[in-house]
């Protein structure tokens, strides 16, 4: 097992390298480059550049070189631990994304844990009390959670908060803390703002997970080993928690792999609507402005999360399920 994990960890840089090539190609795919969109921006504000200036800019950023040279330079910098400078913001990328990344992670992990803590019991109750009033109620809640886009929920929440309480719930910090250095007061302020985006994101996550849990458990509840446990004289709830729930949770664990990156990319629209200083909106802006080094860095981070998420769920699965543990 440990051997297996080491093998997977060794594979991580190779996978990242492959992903980085694809990411770079896809980011470069739209016509034009950063300078084109920069000129367009200038033109919209009424000013312009002459060809000499344009060529100078291109040469400065290395945009006049062939794509493989550009990739090579970018990669060699990253290997040295330097994510480069954002063309758009004119700031080192590391400096730009660190805080946003931390905030995204906090929101993501809180959403993740809250979804699990809510979804697993909801799924269990729904399956055990199948076709009861409670099950129907929870199913309706689940469908609403899945069918309503999170950004719509965010908009409704903003509108309700504003029309009822007269407060604006956008952002993660009050105005006086936005650019303030980290302090206890700033953390307190963050917690005051954090709950709403977390709740909004939890709604759809919970609904999805609860449905998977319900379906998994329904499959297991009629298995002979459940009947056998009953025939032994175990009490109903005890046996359900020990046997079918234990088996039904395994497929759920395997969803962690894609659930982690989904929290990052899935929160993009919500984060844009709520004006959250997370990584999503910055990623969107970097793509529209063809800020390729920033976009590339963020894509690489997404990829790494996907790989790590899969690894974590594989390890958890092997730990939970002896059948998988014995195989590897």
């Amino acid at each position, binding site marked *: 097992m440990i051997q297996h994990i080491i093998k997977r960890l060794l594979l991580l840089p190779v996978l990242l390298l492959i992903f980085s090539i694809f990411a770079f190609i896809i980011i470069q795919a739209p016509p034009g480059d950063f300078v084109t969109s920069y000129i367009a921006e200038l033109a919209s504000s009424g000013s312009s550049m002459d060809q000499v200036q344009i060529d100078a800019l291109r040469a400065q950023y290395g945009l006049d070189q062939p794509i493989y040279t550009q990739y090579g330079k970018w990669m060699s910098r990253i290997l040295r631990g330097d994510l480069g400078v954002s063309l758009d913001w004119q700031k080192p990328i590391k400096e730009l994304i660190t805080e946003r990344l931390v905030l995204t992670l906090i929101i993501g992990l809180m959403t993740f844990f809250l979804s699990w803590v809510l979804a697993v019991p909801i799924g269990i109750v729904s399956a055990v009390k199948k076709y009861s009033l409670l099950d129907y109620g929870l199913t309706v809640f689940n469908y609403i959670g899945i069918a309503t886009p999170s950004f719509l929920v965010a908009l409704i929440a903003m509108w309700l908060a504003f029309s009822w309480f007269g407060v604006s719930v956008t952002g993660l910090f009050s105005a006086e803390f936005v650019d303030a250095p980290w302090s206890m007061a700033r953390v307190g302020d963050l917690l005051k703002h954090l709950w709403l985006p977390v709740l909004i994101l939890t709604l759809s996550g919970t609904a999805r997970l609860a449905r998977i849990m319900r379906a998994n458990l329904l499959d297991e509840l009629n298995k*002979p*080993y459940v009947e*056998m446990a*009953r*025939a*032994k*004289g*175990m009490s109903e709830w005890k046996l359900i928690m020990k046997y079918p729930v*234990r088996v039904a949770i395994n497929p759920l664990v395997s969803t962690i792999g894609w659930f982690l990156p989904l929290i990052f990319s899935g929160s993009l629209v919500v984060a844009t609507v709520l004006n959250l200083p997370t990584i999503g909106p910055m990623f969107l802006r970097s793509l529209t402005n063809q800020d390729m080094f920033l976009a590339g860095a963020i894509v690489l981070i997404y990829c790494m999360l996907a790989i790590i998420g899969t690894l974590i769920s594989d390890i958890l699965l092997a730990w939970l399920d002896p*059948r998988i543990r014995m195989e590897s």
Partner: protein
Amino acid sequence: MNQPLLSVRNLKTYFHLDEGVVKAVDGVTFDVFPGQVVGIVGESGCGKSVTIKSVLRIVPPPGRLDGGEMLYRPQKQAGYEGLRPDGAIDLATLDERGKQMRALRGSEIALIPQEPMASFSPVHTIGNQLIEAIRLHQPISKQDAWQLAVERMHEVGVPSPEQRMNAYSWELSGGLRQRAMIAMALSCSPSLLIADEPTTAIDVTTQAQVLTLLKGLQASHQMAIIFITHDLGVIAQMADWVVVMYLGRVMEQGPADDIFHNPQHPYTRALLESIPTVHSASRTFLPTIAGSIPHPFNRPPGCPYYPRCVEFMAGACDQRTPALQPIGQRQFVSCFLHHDVADE
């Protein structure tokens, strides 16, 4: 004659589906005496399994008990509520998830299931599940329960039981798995063992070993067994008393010798004729029972067997349902060929 351990009287277990009611068990009556092996035999879908699930009170919904009594005489400690003056308790009146029924399940009445593979949890060790079964009914420490489990495993012929305790069910062979299952069923020394086609899922050689084992354990533990099978050969080897079921009803019952040598019901006779023997002429067709089991929603009125019966009497069999009546010394039969008593 001593008192029966279990008396099932006119048991009715119906499945209430949207499409209609399936009368899986429709008025079954039989007795099990202490130390006796009762074989319930019948085709698939005749209600054998539902009968024993009713006794254990683990009928899955939408099935439920719709009538009858199941009088059980607890052999272990007293202290059961609702004990009748004659020392019996009606299982049909107990709450199927209640404390009383759970105290009886596993401790007094144990089950050996049909599929040992699927009846062990795949993510828990054999030992974990055995120890759990022991500690549910006996207030002993985990270490003592482990010791007891190992002893039981040894008793049922599992080699190096200490190692098997840490194994998962899917790491064992079919025969070993069923032995481990038997060890679990025996762990609380039940008075009544219910074996639901315990040899169907294992190969013939192992089958014979498991049957011999069960027979030996039955003698040494002095327990009664309800043995369910569709295999008349197995019944002949195991049972003292045979109950022949068809479509949720008892067609005939009696001592094994009488059922095999002096069958009274046309269905029993037809079943026995369809067993191949070494004495029959070669290259001849084996007699079979004409027709097939009616669809559960399309039960014939009257005797359930009449559409396939060679001795069908129009005006009687298709009008009224024959009741189970004594015939001869110890046999019972429900057939108008032998009496004229109908149910309801």
